């Protein structure tokens, strides 16, 4: 009987230690409601919005958000997805330089309002193909408090190395559908 109780105690101890080990560090904890926009008019912000909706988190996406139209309201976190779409920028009548200028303005306004800034890359290697993608990633990640990526986006270790070099916390999720779990 004593032996069984001891085994049970040890099992509980191991489980509780695992739980502590798996708890996300404070710096990578994200708090909603979330405001989401895209730097490059890719569908990333729509995907974050849909993933959040599925997970029951509160998220609002606006791909035309500017510093002038930014209203902090009850938002706690701004998520900016990086990676560009030529079709998307064509649809919005914009280009990568204008997109970066718009997003940097929004980030500045959000930071002043006390929001945490998350730089995200959630559409995989398909949004890491050209100089526009690179410019978008560089601009957004440089301003991010936390970096959020999917496994495919970091398949070459780029974001892991970037986060380490710039000492930024990194959250890696399996794919875009899993984003809701960390929101």
């Amino acid at each position, binding site marked *: 009987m004593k032996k069984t109780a001891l085994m049970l105690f040890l099992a509980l101890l191991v489980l509780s230690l695992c739980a502590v080990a798996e708890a996300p560090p404070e710096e990578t904890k994200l708090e909603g409601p979330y405001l989401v926009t895209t730097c490059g*008019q890719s*569908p990333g912000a*729509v*995907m974050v*919005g*849909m*993933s959040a909706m*599925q997970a029951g988190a509160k998220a609002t996406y606006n791909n035309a958000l500017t510093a002038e139209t930014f209203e902090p309201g009850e938002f706690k976190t701004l998520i900016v997805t990086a990676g560009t*779409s*030529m*079709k*998307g920028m*064509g*649809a*919005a*009548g914009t280009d990568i330089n204008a997109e970066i200028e718009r997003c940097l303005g929004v980030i500045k306004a959000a930071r002043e309002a006390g929001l945490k800034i998350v730089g995200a890359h959630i*559409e*995989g*290697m*398909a*949004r890491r*193909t*050209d100089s526009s993608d690179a410019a978008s990633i560089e601009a957004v990640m440089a301003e991010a408090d936390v970096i959020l990526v999917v496994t*495919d986006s970091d398949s070459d270790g780029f974001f892991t190395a970037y986060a380490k070099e710039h000492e930024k916390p990194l959250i890696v999720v*399996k*794919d*875009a*559908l*899993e984003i809701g779990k960390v929101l």
Partner: protein
Amino acid sequence: MKLKWAKIAVLLVMAACAAVAGFLFHEQRVYREAVAASPHLTQVKKLSDYSPAIKGTVNDCNVYVFDSGVPGGTALLIGGTHAEEPVALVSALVFTENLKVTQGRVFVIHRVNTSASTNTRLGEAYPRFFHVEAPWGVQKWRMGDRVANPLDSWPDPEVYIHYPSGQNLAYMDIRNLNRNWPGKADGLLTERTTFAAMELIRQEGVDLTIDFHEAELEYPVENTIVAHERGNEVAAMTSMMLTSQTFRVPIGMEFSPKALHGLSHREVGDHSDAVSYLFEVAEPMLDRIRGITDEELLMSGKDRFVMKAGEHNLLYAPIDESGWPFDLRIARHVTTAQTLIQVNNMLHPDQAILMEGIPSYQDILDQGTGAFLRDPAAAPPEQVYYD
């Protein structure tokens, strides 16, 4: 005297070449593609039933109707926009030969630009036909060109001015069906075809359209769903679900550009209540840097020159020794269409369409496309149609 006989000999050789070429072109132009439709097909209409603009032309194609009789949504699946993208045709056909609709309605077109399937691309040495092995034998289809046959639509204008936007496009795009939406009743052949298709969409109250395509790996809009803005959320969720749960190579999503006119994903959504989507899947045979252009390449999707380009990061889709085989491309399109309709059911329950009988992604990969094609010779005659 010798010169005279030499001239006659050259003439005879040329005449023989012309006769052989003429026979081959004629064979491709008149070949009839058999369709052994699902027993649950409710009706076959002609596109001209919706507009006389197309009546009597080669593009007066069949419209396969699956009506459950239960109120719900209506979808239109479009194959054959570009005849040199044969997976678009066969993906639509997999629906026609297997589908049972238990709620809502599904309309299917295999050859929306039949004219394009009756010629070939000059200088590209495309095969004239392609074949799929089935348990009962071999099914054969025409392998055509991107644009309509000049025999059916000629001459081209100096500059093609898209109607109604007024946007200038390249002259040959007047025969490219996916530069001619929403069409024009008194225009040239492809304009009249899309006009009639728009009439179908408007008169039948279609809720969503899916236009199947294939694309070269050098093209940035690859392995993706292009969506009209009213379909962004459905397309995004479809892309995320398939990437997470089904596909080895992710499927992305793109917004339809508002200023690029004539494409189905833009104009169908702008000129009707339907939400328009366009699917792309990787097809190495369409790449400019490919090697020998034969049926083997079309079906295997394996090409060492395209692979070499991939090693130099010149492509927008991955490729390795396994290539992009025909069955994989079919499986992606068929599964994407099913998933998108399921997501649309969730987000718009008033447009629910419930389908049965369509093979899963893994079924197509495991058993091959041929396992889901019916034998026209063995099917009851009333279920056999010709495109």
